Structures are given as C-alpha cells and as structure tokens.
C-alpha cells in the first residue's frame, strides 16, 4: 500500500494554493479597455526604447529570420497579414490596440489551458498506454497496471477542467465562435458545419464521456480481477481496451482539430492529430517511468525490476524520436512548399518564439537520444529521471507553442499566469495521482500475465 508522503502532500497543497492565487491574479490584472492597452504600450515603449513585444510587429524589424531564410524582405509580413485579417477589426491604428487588448485578455486563459491540457494529456496518454498493454496482451507490463491506473485517476478532474476551459473560452481561443467575423469570412462559413458551437460542445462531451467511461470500467475490471479465480474480468478488459483504442484514435484526431487547430481556423494540417498524440504518448510514458522510480525508491514495488524500467526508457526514447519525426514531417512539408496560407503557422512561431521553438527540439530530441541511447543507462534511475525532466519540460513547451502563438500572438510572456497555472496543475496532479495510487495494493493479483511480468528479464 502506498500513501502519499506527507511532505509531498504538503508540497502539492502549497503548489495548488500558490497556483490558484497566481491564476486569479492573472485574470484580474488583464487590461479592461483600450486605454489600458495604450498605457501599457506607452510604458513598454519608454522602457525598451526600441519596443518589441506589444507594438513591435507593425513597425521596426523589417528583415527577420523568415525573410532572411526566404531571401525576400517582408515575406513573413505579407504572409502574416492573412492571419491577422482574421480579427474582425481589420487594420488601422485603433484596431491594432483593440487586437492587442484581445490578446492580453486571452493570456490568462491560454496560460491556464496550456497547463491544464498538459497534465490532462499525461493521464490520457497513460490510459492509452494501458489500453495498448491490454489489447496487445503484453507480458512485461502487468506489474505496472496499478501505477498506470493511479496516474489515470487524474483524467476525470483534469478532463473536466479542460472541458470547462474550452467551452467557456469562447472567442478568446476560437475566432470561429465570433458571429460577426464568420459573417464576413467565406472560409469560416464553409467550415461552420463542423465548427459551430453546439456541435463543438457535443463532441467535447463525447470525448469526455468516452475516455472517462473506459477509465472507470477498465479500473473496475482490473480490481475485480484481483479477487476472482477466473479470467472473466480480464477478458472484458481486453475487449473494451480494443474498442477504446478505436474510439480514442478517432476522438483524439477530432479533439486536436477542435481544441487546437481551430484556434487558427484558416490553417490546417493533416498530420496535426498524430503530432499531438505523439506528444501526449511520450510524456505519459515518461510520467509512468517517473512514478515507477518514485515508488521503487520507496521500496513499495519489489516486483518491478530495472528491466521494466529499461523497457519504459526504451519507449521514452523511441517515442521521442517518433514525436520528432512527426514534428519534422509537418514542419518540413510546410516549409518546403511555403504556401502562404499554411506557412503563417510557422512564421509566427519562428519569429516570435524562436528560442522556444528550436529549444524544444533540443529538449525533446537531442537530449533524450543522447541520454537514453546506451542500453546500460536505461536501467539507471537517475539517468532516466534526467531524460524525463528534459522530455516533460520539452513537451510542456510544445503545448505552449500550440496554444500561445495562436491565441496571444506577439504578446506572450512566461510570467505569473503561466507559472501559476503550471504550479496549480502540478500540485493537483500530484495530489490526485497520489490518492489514486494509495487506494489499493500496488500489485495486480490474478492477472493472467502477472507471473510472466514479475519474472521478466532480457
């Protein structure tokens, strides 16, 4: 039996309180009117002299990275015009401030959403990993079932929070929910059969129900299996896992279109859903490895050996590469063809988020590949922990870069709202997962593969 160490519990509660205070602070300090924005812009102007954040895009720097790469000055500017045209205000001095006001008001929403989704996807990814283990009748992983179930405990609270955010964010995130804008935009009108609020809501409810029901029943069957002498519950779990995986891969795709891609409704990418899945899956496996190391450190799971850790680390390694493969496939195809309606997505990310955009590649690809390539290192817990920290930070940045450029654009900062949201959800995650782990014995008795799993070695 596991109990969340009291220090960790206190730590997570402190995180939640601090985070909550920071989130509220973030929402309260957004500018309310255009006059506030003007004041902020004037302040920044006087502070930097040469301004970069709020007013930077319109004047100043004529040649940026993208222009240089293209060898044509003003290319990115022209391509981006397309994206900024989305805002109902159009162009002009007053409308620019209105635009900035909207982005500044969106910032706490985005900050909260990034962290909320990041921690939810850890639980969801763990659930998918769990389903895959059942559906593939894996012989090595049953010793980890209780640990994964513990992590997926967070899915219910986490997904409800994410659901509330996407439903109530409205035009903060989703320009297609602005009727005035849609009325003047042919592209959005064409898409409105899919991108309309009632259908959006129904889809979100379906995702939420589907994922959480699978989590509820698989956990239940798994616990029932521990007390029975036949394999009935296991067989049930096998079946529902197969159906969940089918359901998941469809809903995951539509979820990423709904919640992320429709933030920039003029832009689309076929690979997008897989790309988000890769991010989700690799960070979830990383968290499974971290929790396993934590429990192993406490001496609670003697049946988990360094061979199991080795396998988890292999998954971390392989899916880091898989993520990079998808990231690059998406980037390179768009970069190569350089079609204005597609390339805006990357122009804003490279221009305004250059360090994060390329730094993320180092964290998500170069470090894991170098740290985890050697097979001996995969069995050393602290090596895995180092790689895990790189991967988790990297994928937080990944989600940050999905949301922020599309919603707050140039007006991003990594400040109190972002850090607070991260702390809040980290605290909540630790607390909920700790609670989930402490409910039952950590060894899934009577699982048909538990014996094989315990004696697993290679």
């Amino acid at each position, binding site marked *: 039996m596991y109990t969340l160490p009291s220090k960790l519990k206190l730590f997570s509660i402190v995180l939640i309180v601090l985070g909550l205070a920071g989130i509220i602070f973030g929402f309260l300090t957004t500018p309310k009117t255009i006059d506030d924005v003007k004041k902020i812009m004037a302040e920044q102007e006087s502070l930097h002299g040469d301004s970069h954040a709020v007013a930077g895009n319109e004047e100043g720097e004529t040649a940026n990275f993208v222009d*240089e*790469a*293209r*060898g*044509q000055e003003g290319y990115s500017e022209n391509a981006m015009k397309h994206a900024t045209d989305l805002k109902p205000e159009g162009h002009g001095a007053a409308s620019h401030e209105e635009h900035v006001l909207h982005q500044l008001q969106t910032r706490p929403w985005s900050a909260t959403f990034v962290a909320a989704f990041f921690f939810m996807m850890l639980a969801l990814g763990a659930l998918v990993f769990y389903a895959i283990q059942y559906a593939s009748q894996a012989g090595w992983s049953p010793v980890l079932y209780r640990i994964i179930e513990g992590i997926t405990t967070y899915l219910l609270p986490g997904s409800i929070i994410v659901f509330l955010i996407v439903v109530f964010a409205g035009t903060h995130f989703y320009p297609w929910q602005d009727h005035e804008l849609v009325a003047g935009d042919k592209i959005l009108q064409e898409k409105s059969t899919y991108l309309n609020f009632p259908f959006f809501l129904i889809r979100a409810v379906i995702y939420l129900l589907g994922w959480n029901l699978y989590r509820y029943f698989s956990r239940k069957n798994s616990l029932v299996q521990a007390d029975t002498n036949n394999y009935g519950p296991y067989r049930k779990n096998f079946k529902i896992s197969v159906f969940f995986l089918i359901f998941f891969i469809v809903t995951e795709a539509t979820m990423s279109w709904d919640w992320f891609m429709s933030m920039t409704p003029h832009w689309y990418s076929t690979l997008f859903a897989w790309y988000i899945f890769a991010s989700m899956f690799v960070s979830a496996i990383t968290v499974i490895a971290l929790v396993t190391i934590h429990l192993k450190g406490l001496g609670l799971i003697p049946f988990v050996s360094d061979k199991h850790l080795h396998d988890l680390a292999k998954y971390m390694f392989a899916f880091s590469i898989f993520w990079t493969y998808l990231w*690059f496939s998406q*980037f*390179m195809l768009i*970069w*190569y063809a*350089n079609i204005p309606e597609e390339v805006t997505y990357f122009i804003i990310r490279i221009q305004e988020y250059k360090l994060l955009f390329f730094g993320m590649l180092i964290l998500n690809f170069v470090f894991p590949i170098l740290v985890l*390539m050697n*097979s001996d290192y995969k069995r050393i817990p602290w090596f895995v922990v180092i790689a895990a920290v790189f991967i988790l930070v990297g994928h937080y940045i990944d989600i940050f870069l999905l949301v922020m450029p599309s919603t707050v654009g140039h007006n991003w900062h990594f400040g109190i709202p972002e850090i607070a949201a991260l702390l809040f959800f980290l605290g909540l995650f630790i607390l909920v997962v700790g609670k989930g782990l402490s409910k039952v014995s950590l060894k899934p008795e009577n699982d048909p593969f538990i014996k094989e799993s315990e004696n697993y070695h290679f």
Partner: protein
Amino acid sequence: MAATKIHAIYTDDDLLMQAVKQTRSANYHISEVFTPFPVHGLDHAVGIAPTRIAITSFLYGLVGLSVAVLMMNYMMIQDWPQNIGGKPSFTFYQNMPAFIPIMFELTVFFAGHLMVITFYMRSKLWPFKKAENPDPRTTDDHFLMEVDADNHDVEKLTKFLYDTGASEISLIENEQDH
C-alpha cells in the same frame, strides 16, 4: 603446437547451459561452443565479453552524418549556390530542412552497412571461407562444447564431462590452431 581438445556433444540446450556453468566453475577452459541456434544467455554463461558493435555503429553513424553535412554544404552552398525554386542557399542552416532526409539516410546507411562489414571482419566471415564446423550435426540438433585439455588429466576431464550429461565425448588432437 599440439592442441588437445575435448569435444563434448549435448542434445539439449538446457543441458548445455548447465554443462557450461559446471565446466566454468570447475575451472576448465571452454574454447568454443557450437549451437544450431542462439541460446539465450549462453554468451554470459561462457563468460564472453559484451559486444562493442553498437558503439562502432554509433561512431559510423556520426561519420555518415558528417559526410552528408560536408557533402551538401559543399555542393549546395559553397560550390554552386543556385536559386532552385526559391530555396535559400545562402547558408547551410537556412536550407537545412531540405537536407535532413539525406542526412538521416546517410547516417543510417553508414551505421548499418559499416557495422555489418565490421561484424563480418570480426567474425571472419566471407564468401568461400572454409567452414569451421567440427561436426555437421551442430547445425541441426546437437550442441558441442570444446574444452581445452592441454594442462589437464584427460581421463578426469572426460569423466567430468560425462557427468555433466554429454552424450558423446571425443578427444581431438590437431597440429594447427584455428
């Protein structure tokens, strides 16, 4: 140098593993083991040092990567930087996404092929190489353990190997070492 060896034949891989462990703990030197298929854990039981072929492969991969980078930097950026479809050929990094598929493939190509060639050279495998198989049955269903007998009492060693479950034991004396 006259080498005296004893060939002990086993009919089961579990028996072989057992025999290898006993022979090692009795301080006899196993010079070679012939099996029809890979026996899991045998290398460890015989006490063979872990292979370093993965390290060579990693290094070959780095060589491949360097070849790709140098080649394309020279051809596309230095030697004749043309404007091909508007792709920026001013510096290497500006046009890098277009080079990555080639960089990746050459890394894999070098790592894979050079590693295989290294494997062939280290294991002395090539076409028309004379097979070194002491008993053709070891390619089918028999397992053969070759033990050095030079400094040991052959009688005692034979008795020992018989006790480990060997189904056939033969004394081999030959002039050349292979």
